[in-house]
Structure formats: C-alpha cells, structure tokens
C-alpha cells in the first residue's frame, strides 16, 4: 500500500483533483483512497462545501453611476477625436 496516497498527501492534492490536473495514475490513487477512507471523504466534501460557500460572497453587480457617466463622457470625447 506504500504506493497509495496517505491522508496527508490527499489534503495536498485535492485542488489538483478538482481541476482534473492530476496525472492519470494519481487521479486513480485519489479515487481509490476515497473508497476506503471516511476521513478523507469528509475532508474532500468540506473542501467542496468551502468552494460552494465562497461562491456566495457578495459581488457588486453594477458600476457606481458617477463612474459609468464618466466612462460614457470619455467615449464621446474619444469619438470626436
């Protein structure tokens, strides 16, 4: 089993796993480890939850109106040149 990932190694490569950036052998090692290790299963789920929750952080969906106005004015000047 020395060829397998340890739990600590699992926690180091989880982002590569999510990005599908692990070499095929390591990808299989990662998934094999998950079949027998509940602790890593939980850890990976918590990383997924972390990403999901991070996606809910508020974002400003519009430009400040004064800035928008300046940008449009700038366009009018640019068009004149």
């Amino acid at each position: 089993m020395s060829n397998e990932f340890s739990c600590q190694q699992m926690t180091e490569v989880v982002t590569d796993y999510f990005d599908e950036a692990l070499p095929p052998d390591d990808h299989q090692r990662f998934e094999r480890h998950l079949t027998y290790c509940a602790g890593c299963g939980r850890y990976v789920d918590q990383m997924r939850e972390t990403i999901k929750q991070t996606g809910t952080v508020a974002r400003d969906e519009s430009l400040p109106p004064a800035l928008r106005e300046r940008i449009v004015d700038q366009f009018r000047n640019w068009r004149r040149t």
Partner: protein
Amino acid sequence: MHAPEPSNSEAALLAALRRGDENAFIALVDGYGAVMHRVALTFVRSNEVADEVVQEAWLGALRGLDRFEGRSALRTWLLRIVANIARTHAVREARAVPFSALELEHEAGTERAPALPIDRFQGPDAPHPGRWVSFPTPWPAEPDSAVVSAETRDLIADTIARLPDGQRIVITLRDVEGWNSADVCSVLDVSETYQRVLLHRARTKVRAALEDYLTGESP
C-alpha cells in the same frame, strides 16, 4: 468565465462600436463594467484608484479596438486590459501587490508549509504515518437560517481579505467570480501550476476558518 465565446451579437456590438455607436458602447459598459471594476478592486483595493483604472481600461479598449481580432472572448480581452493597468497603478502606489507572474510564482514557491498542521496526521514513527490522527469533525448540515449564511459569507470575505495578495487574487477570481483556471492564468499571466498552488493554499485557509466557526475547533 460565465460569458460564452464571442457570439454573433457580440460581433454586431463590436461592429457598431467601430462605427462610433454610443448605444453599443453603453451595452458593453453595462455588460462588463461591473466585473472590470471588481477585478480592479482586487488589485488596488482603493475605490478611487479602481475607478481610474476602469476608466483608463475603457479608453485603452477603445484605442485598441482595431487590434482586437476576436481570438479571445471580448470579456477576457477587456479583463486583461484592466489587470495590466491595475498592476501599473499598483506599482505607482508602491503597493506590495504581486504585479508580475514572477512575483506570484515567488509567493507560491515560498509557502512550502503543509496545507494542514502536521499534528493532524500520524508522524513517521506511528503505525500509519500520514494517516489522520482523528477525522475532521463533521460540519452541521447546511444551515438554512439567513442569519447564519450571512455570517458565513462575512467570515469567508474576511478570511480572503487577510490572505497574502496572490492567494487573495486567485481565490477571488476562481471561487468568488467563478472563472476557470485558463482564464485566471491568461488574465494574471501565471502558469496553471502556480495558480493552483496559490488557490489550494487559499482554499485550505478558508476551509480552516469555516471549520473553526462551524465546529468550534481551532483549525
């Protein structure tokens, strides 16, 4: 990024813009202005400077319009312009933001510490080196109270704001903005590998903060 590759309507907007059509310009500003502003704020952090950066970026885009060949998505092109101008401003402000790929790579390379404290795993002389000492504590089922989720969001935003610059910028673009790896690398001019190292550090710290908050354990 959420936007598709250059579409027919985008091509039509660009054609109109090249003819000097103001409505086409406004449509683009309303479509991409907000995300450009958020990206600028990721780099410079001051509202005033971010405003300047975005304004300059639109001027740069107008001047470079003839050079835009539609090989990348319009959105990516605009965001690269913003990122480049924001870096220039950050240099002028002498802020310690990683301006270049090299500096981002330096940050990725210097943090060689393990993602989690090593005492969470059995040591080299233990029966199962590298195995959990005890499993991570389960988190409570998804809280459905609006108060709790608002608190969680604040906690995450706060944790991200205190990360080193490279990690902060990468996790903001990947996980708050939802960009894919290729777009982040293209806008930041950094390799996929280094980008992923920074992202991993950042996510690990956010998870630790959530763990602390949700289970009352120290990370």
